[in-house]
C-alpha cells in the first residue's frame, strides 16, 4: 500500500483527485518468508493464505514476531561478562514482495475525467510492473523484541507522480507473556508503529482488510474513504506509540480479549491526507495534537472455529489550510474526523487438510466537523461518511482460492471535500460487488483475477447522472494480479 501520489484536475475548485488507489487499499501486510526462516514453520501455519491470519499467526504476532526455532549457533551473542546482552539472528530476516498488475476499466481511463489522476495512462489495459516492491526486515531482534519493518517502492501509475520509496506499515514491539493462572495467559506489548491498526490481529481492520491489494489504475482508488482507511503506511505518514494486551482465558483458549491503545502524530511533517478523495482545499495540514486510537476485540475459539467481534475509534484533528495557505502547520480552521468501527470475523479451519473459510465484515462510521472559515463545506459545518465492507474467502489445499464481497460507501455529499468531477453535489456514494479467483502454483506465488462491478460510483448511477456521461458500469474493473514473496 502505499504512497502514491496526487494528480490534479482543474475545475472551478481545484480538485485533486487522488490516486488513492494504492493508499486507500491499505492492504499491506503479508506472510513473510523471513518469519518462515526464523521459525521453520510453513506460511500455512500462521496464514490461511497471506495476509489472512490463523489463530497461530495471531499468537505469533501477539508475541512480537519473537518466536524462533533457531539453533544456538544460528545466533550471535553479545556478552558482558557472563551475561548475554544481545542475541542477534544470523539467519536473514530480509524478505521481498513483488506485485504486478494488469487492469481494464469498463469505460477506459477516461471515465475518471480529463486530467484525472491517471492522466498519463494508456486509454485502457494498463500494466504495472512492478506495481509495488516491498522490502521487509522482520522478525526477532532479540528475545522479547521484534520488528516488522516495511519499505515499499511503489510504481504509482503514470501521471500520478508515483514511483518512489516510502515507509510502509511498520512496527517495533516489545512483548511479554504473563501466566495469570492455569487457564489464563496475558500477553502485553509496547510498540512504536506508523499505521493505525497495523498491530491488529484480525483482517477486518483498515490495514489488513480484503481485497488485499489493488492496482493503481482501478476505479476503487477514486472512491472516498474515511480518514483511518487512508492513513496506512505512506498514505499519511504517522508516528505512533502504543500498548496492547491480550488476555487469553478459559479451557482450550476459548476466549481472547484484546485491547490496544495508541496515539499518533505526524511522522514526516506537513501531510496531505486523502480523506474523502483529495481536494486542494481539504485537510492538508498537520494533525492538531495527538490522534488517539483505541481498539477492543473479543475472540471466541471452539473446535475448528473462531469468531471475533470488535470495535475501534480514532479521533483525528487536522489543520485546514484554507486560511494559512502554506499547508498549515498551525492556526487556521481545524477539521475533525472521528472514526468509529464495528467489525466481525468468522473463521473455519481444517488444519489437517488445509481447507478454510474466513468471513469478515466491518463498518466504519466517520463524523466530520469542519472548522469555521474553511472552504470545504461552506454550507454545512459537519458531515458523515460510512464505509461498509463484507467479504469471504475460501482456500482449498492452499492452492486454489475464491473470494468475493460487497463494499458500500455512503455519506453526506460535499463538493468541497469530494470534488465535482462526477456530480455537482459531490456525492461519495459508491457500492460494488467483487469476485476473485486465485491460484498459487507455489505457496509463495499467487495469481488472481478479480472483477469488480459497480452499482454506483461517486454518486453516479445512470450515465445521465454523471457530469462525464458515464454510467456506473463504466467503472467496472477487471484486474489480473500477481504476487510473489521470498
Amino acid at each position, binding site marked *: 500500500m502505499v504512497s502514491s501520489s496526487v494528480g490534479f484536475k482543474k475545475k472551478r475548485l481545484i480538485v485533486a483527485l487522488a490516486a488513492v488507489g494504492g493508499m486507500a487499499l491499505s492492504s499491506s501486510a503479508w506472510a513473510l518468508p523471513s518469519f518462515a526462516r526464523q521459525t*521453520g514453520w510453513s506460511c500455512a501455519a500462521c496464514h490461511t493464505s497471506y495476509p489472512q491470519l490463523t489463530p497461530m499467526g495471531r499468537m505469533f504476532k501477539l508475541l512480537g514476531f519473537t518466536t524462533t526455532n533457531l539453533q544456538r549457533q544460528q545466533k550471535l551473542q553479545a556478552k558482558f561478562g557472563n551475561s548475554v546482552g544481545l542475541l542477534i539472528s544470523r539467519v536473514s530476516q530480509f524478505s521481498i514482495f513483488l506485485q504486478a498488475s494488469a487492469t481494464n476499466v469498463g469505460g477506459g481511463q477516461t471515465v475518471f475525467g480529463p486530467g484525472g489522476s491517471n492522466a498519463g495512462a494508456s486509454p485502457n489495459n494498463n500494466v504495472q510492473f512492478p506495481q509495488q516492491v516491498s522490502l521487509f526486515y522482520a522478525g526477532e531482534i532479540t528475545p522479547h523484541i521484534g520488528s516488522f519493518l516495511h519499505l515499499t517502492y511503489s510504481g504509482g501509475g503514470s501521471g500520478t507522480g508515483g514511483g518512489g520509496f516510502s515507509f510502509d506499515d511498520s512496527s517495533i514491539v516489545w512483548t511479554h507473556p504473563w501466566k495469570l493462572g492455569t487457564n489464563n495467559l496475558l500477553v502485553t506489548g509496547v510498540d512504536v508503529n506508523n499505521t493505525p491498526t497495523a498491530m491488529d490481529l484480525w483482517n477486518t481492520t483498515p490495514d489488513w482488510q480484503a481485497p488485499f491489494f489493488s492496482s493503481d489504475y482501478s476505479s476503487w482508488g477514486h472512491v472516498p474513504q474515511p480518514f483511518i482507511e487512508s492513513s496506512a503506511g505512506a498514505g499519511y505518514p504517522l508516528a505512533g506509540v502504543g500498548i496492547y494486551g491480550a488476555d487469553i482465558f478459559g479451557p482450550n483458549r476459548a476466549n481472547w480479549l484484546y485491547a490496544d491503545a495508541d496515539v499518533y502524530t505526524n511522522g514526516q511533517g506537513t501531510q496531505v491526507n486523502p480523506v474523502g478523495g483529495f481536494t486542494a482545499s481539504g485537510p492538508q495540514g498537520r494533525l492538531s495534537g495527538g490522534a488517539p486510537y483505541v481498539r477492543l476485540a473479543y475472540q471466541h475459539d471452539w473446535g475448528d472455529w473462531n469468531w471475533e467481534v470488535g470495535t475501534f475509534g480514532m479521533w483525528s484533528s487536522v489543520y485546514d489550510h484554507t486560511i494559512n495557505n502554506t499547508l498549515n502547520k498551525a492556526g487556521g480552521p481545524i477539521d475533525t474526523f472521528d472514526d468509529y468501527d464495528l467489525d466481525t470475523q468468522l473463521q473455519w479451519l481444517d488444519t*489437517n487438510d488445509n481447507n478454510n473459510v474466513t468471513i469478515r465484515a466491518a463498518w466504519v462510521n466517520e463524523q466530520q466537523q469542519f472548522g469555521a472559515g474553511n472552504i470545504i463545506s461552506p454550507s454545512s459545518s459537519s458531515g458523515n461518511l460510512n464505509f461498509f465492507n463484507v467479504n469471504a474467502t475460501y482456500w482449498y489445499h492452499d492452492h486454489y482460492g475464491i473470494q468475493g464481497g460487497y463494499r458500500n460507501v455512503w455519506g453526506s455529499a460535499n463538493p468541497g471535500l469530494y470534488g465535482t468531477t462526477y456530480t455537482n453535489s459531490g456525492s461519495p456514494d459508491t457500492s460494488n460487488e467483487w469476485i476473485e479467483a486465485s491460484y498459487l502454483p507455489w505457496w509463495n506465488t499467487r495469481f488472481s483475477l478479480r472483477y469488480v462491478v459497480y452499482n454506483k460510483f461517486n454518486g453516479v448511477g445512470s450515465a445521465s447522472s454523471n457530469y462525464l456521461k458515464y454510467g456506473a458500469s463504466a467503472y467496472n474493473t477487471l484486474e489480473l494480479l500477481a504476487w510473489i514473496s521470498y
Partner: protein
Amino acid sequence: MTTYLNQDRLRNKENDTMTHPHGKMYKSKTFLLFSTLLLVAGQASAAVASADAPAPYRVSSDCMVCHGMTGRDTLYPIVPRLAGQHKSYLEAQLKAYKDHSRADQNGEIYMWPVAQALDSAKITALADYFNAQKPPMQSSGIKHAGVKEGKAIFNQGVTNEQIPACMECHGSDGQGAGPFPRLAGQRYGYIIQQLTYFHNGTRVNTLMNQIAKNITVAQMKDVAAYLSSL
C-alpha cells in the same frame, strides 16, 4: 520486572537479553520509559507464575504459541495437551521429531522445526517442566457422543476385531506410565488424529500400528470421546 529476575529463564545465558539489569540498560532513559509503560500495561506482574515452576525460556517464546504456558490450553483440537504428561514419553517424542522417526503430517509440519533446535539438555528441561504441570483432568468441558462405547473399548477392547483393551498399557484411568502416554483429558481431535496416523501407518510405532490396524473411525471417535471426558 523484579518478579522475573529470579526466574531460570532470565538467568539463561543463551536466550535472554535481560540478564544483566545492572548494566548499561538501566541507565538508558529509553529503557526506563519502556519499563514504566510496561508496568502500566502489565499490572499483573505480581501475580505471575509464583505457584508453578518457572518455565524454561523456550516455553514462553515458542511452545506456548500452540501448547500454552502450562500445556493445558492448546490452540487447536489437533494440538495435544502436555500438562502432566510422562517425562520419558515427552523426551522420546521430542527426540523422535528431532531424528525424524516420528513423521506424521502434523508432527513434521509443526514439530520438526521446533525439535531440530533442541539439544538433549533442553529436551530434558522441557519434559520436566510439562511433566510437573497439573494434568488437564476434565478441563475441556465439552462432551462428545460415544463416551459409554469408548469406555467399553478402552477397558475391554473389541475381542472379535482383535483390538486389545487400551487400559492394559495406558492404565485403568488413562493415566499412562513411563513410555505409555497419559491419555486422560487429552483433546478429542488429537486422539482421533493420532489413531488415524497409527491406523494408516504414518506414525510408526510397532505396537500401536498393530493395535489400530482394525479400528474403525467410529471406534476412534468413541475412544476419543471417553478419554477427553476424563
